[in-house]
């Protein structure tokens, strides 16, 4: 019997009409927001950067909404519910990473760029090659991330609505894809930002509610909750200690170190996060965005600790089995049902439906941000600057951006449908690894190293990108990873295919130093006086905001 049929038989479906209604409500509200936003989107700056008129608080919520994907909402609480302490290790890397963005990137990028990650490099380098490289990397990172989200969406909606068929998953993928294309083409950055703000508020609200209900069950005694989780999980104290997942042998330990590096360095190189800093009027507001984002994301990950350990402590054996079958994704929804009064109760049905709707809103907001990011890069970097050499009109540029959003959305749908039953969870970690290996070296060198030049930028971007992707292709997540305890294939390819030679799932420990090294070697082997002379301008502009792009006013 497959995992999903067990699920349907075991689960009580009384929440389904309510869940469906809430999903529809989320869709209607976000469509309303998008149409409203479209009326205020006139110029290219409006389309790409929401007119740079968002406040730090608003953008902070949007950043948090863009960053906290379903993978962190359902995935991390699920990982904690199943592997205890090791699930928590993820969230720490995801949070600490924001200090890199705060201290080294956000404000300087806001001051020196316009619409895309490439702007900042193109400021002092040869436009066409550098923009092409940055755009390739942007699109690759965003598509990896997007595929993981969309396949996740298909899986999740079928889990949450308890309709398990390929047709239902396909329908979900197409619907999510169509909605994200709608948000991005019609609402632009303004619509996307508001969708993300609404999602962040829903996510925080829902998480706070469940956290309080869980803690109340233990009279707000954390130690008692942890004890309950240790006993109920069957692992005892080991459940509360590091090592259950990553402590198996030296390879898994090095793998975890490699993942940790990619998480902490990758965030500041994720293109969909970087372009959020252009939506505020000043560097000071960009700083305030990150401070808000750190507060929200930090509070959220602290609460996932309660959700994860709470799920391990409170769920019945049957429900805990369902969590394991869903690879952890059902931990939060089933926990919500449990603390709402248990399966079959009205309270349980309401909370389960609520959390399901929050998860759905989460997916929509993240995929919209990713689509907008790649479409902006294709239109602004490739079309306007590489093909038209900066001679395209704003109207044409925005038209191309809208077309690119439709094309990227269509590609994402077309790739997600055949991939829907494959194990592609590794794509999120890969996106972080590429961002850390390709984008971060180029951005950091460009801001802080006068000598850095076009060749250095190309070598670090292409070198970091290629090494991360190639290493993952020959790693156990693609082939030869074996099966887990439930017989589930751990690789992308069928179990009888095995061409892996790289031992780690995460390439960061090799590809990140390589990206930095290649950027260094590429730079010192050639002298580029123009890039060096322009550095003084970049330096002043990045640090003071003199001559930086201003907000538009209507």
């Amino acid at each position: 019997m497959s995992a999903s049929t067990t699920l349907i038989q075991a689960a009580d479906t009384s929440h389904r009409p309510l869940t469906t209604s809430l999903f529809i409500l989320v869709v209607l509200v976000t469509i309303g927001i998008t149409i409203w936003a479209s009326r205020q989107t006139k110029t290219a700056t409006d389309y790409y950067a929401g007119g740079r008129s968002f406040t730090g608080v608003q953008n902070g919520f949007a950043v948090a909404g863009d960053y906290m994907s379903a993978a962190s909402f359902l995935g991390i609480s699920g990982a904690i519910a199943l592997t205890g302490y090791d699930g928590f290790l993820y969230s720490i890397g995801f949070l600490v990473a924001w200090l890199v963005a705060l201290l080294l990137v956000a404000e300087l990028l806001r001051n020196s760029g316009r619409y895309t990650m490439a702007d900042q490099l193109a400021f002092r380098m040869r436009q066409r090659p550098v923009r092409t490289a940055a755009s390739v990397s942007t699109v690759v990172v965003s598509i990896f991330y997007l595929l993981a989200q969309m396949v996740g969406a298909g899986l999740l909606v079928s889990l949450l609505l308890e309709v398990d068929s390929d047709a239902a998953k396909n329908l979900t993928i197409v619907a999510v894809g169509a909605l994200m294309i709608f948000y991005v083409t019609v609402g632009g950055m303004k619509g996307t930002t508001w969708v993300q703000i609404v999602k962040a508020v829903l996510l925080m609200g829902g998480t706070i509610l469940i956290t309080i209900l869980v803690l109340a069950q233990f009279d707000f005694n954390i130690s008692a909750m942890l004890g309950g989780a240790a006993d109920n999980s069957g692992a005892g104290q080991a459940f509360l200690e590091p090592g259950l997942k990553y402590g198996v042998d030296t390879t898994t330990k090095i793998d975890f170190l490699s993942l940790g590096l990619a998480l902490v360095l990758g965030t500041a190189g994720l293109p969909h996060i970087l372009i959020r800093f252009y939506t505020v009027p000043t560097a000071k507001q960009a700083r305030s965005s990150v401070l808000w984002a750190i507060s929200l994301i930090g509070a959220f990950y602290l609460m996932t600790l309660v959700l994860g350990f709470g799920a391990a402590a409170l769920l019945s054996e049957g429900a805990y089995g369902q969590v394991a079958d869903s690879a952890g994704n059902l931990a939060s929804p089933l926990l919500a049902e449990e603390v709402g009064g248990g399966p079959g109760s009205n309270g349980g049905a309401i909370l389960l439906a609520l959390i399901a709707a929050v998860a759905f809103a989460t997916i929509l907001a993240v995929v919209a941000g990713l689509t907008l990011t790649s479409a902006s890069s294709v239109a602004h970097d490739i079309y306007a600057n590489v093909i038209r050499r900066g001679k395209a009109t704003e109207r044409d540029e925005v038209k191309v951006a809208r077309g690119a959003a439709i094309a990227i959305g269509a590609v994402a749908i077309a790739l997600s449908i055949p991939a829907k039953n494959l194990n592609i969870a590794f794509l999120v970690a890969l996106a972080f690894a590429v961002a850390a290996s390709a984008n971060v070296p180029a951005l950091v060198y460009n801001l802080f190293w006068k000598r850095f030049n076009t060749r250095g930028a190309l070598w670090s971007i292409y070198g970091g990108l290629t090494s991360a992707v190639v290493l993952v292709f020959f790693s156990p997540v693609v082939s030869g990873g074996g099966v887990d305890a439930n017989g589930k294939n751990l690789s992308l390819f069928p179990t009888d295919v095995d061409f892996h030679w790289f031992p780690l799932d995460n390439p960061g420990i090799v590809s990140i130093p390589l990206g930095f090294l290649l950027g260094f070697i590429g730079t010192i082997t050639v002298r580029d006086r123009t890039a060096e002379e322009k550095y003084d301008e970049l330096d002043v502009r990045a640090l003071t905001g003199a001559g930086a792009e201003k907000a538009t006013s209507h």
Partner: protein
Amino acid sequence: MVEETSAQQHDAYERIHASDEFAELKRRYIGFAFPWTVAFMVWYLLYVVASNWATDFMDTQVVGNINVALVFGLGQFVSTFLIAWLYARHANRSLDPISAKLRAEYDEEVNR
């Protein structure tokens, strides 16, 4: 080839870059950002390494079911919040006044 700036903008940038105030701004910024980046990276990697290779230490119970691993992990949250707050304070007090002044000078020179 590179992004165009007018001669007037170029002169203003060059003058500001050569000024003592800008040198001071850059010194203050780097003086905070670089050491703190090294510090939180080392602190984070120490945590990752300890989770991997110092398990006996991490498993030590502190109070009830709360062990060193949990305290160390929560410590990463506290340090992140703290460094973010320190940076915001530093930027508001020591960086913003200089950058605002230089920005105003630039606007005046370019729009003359």
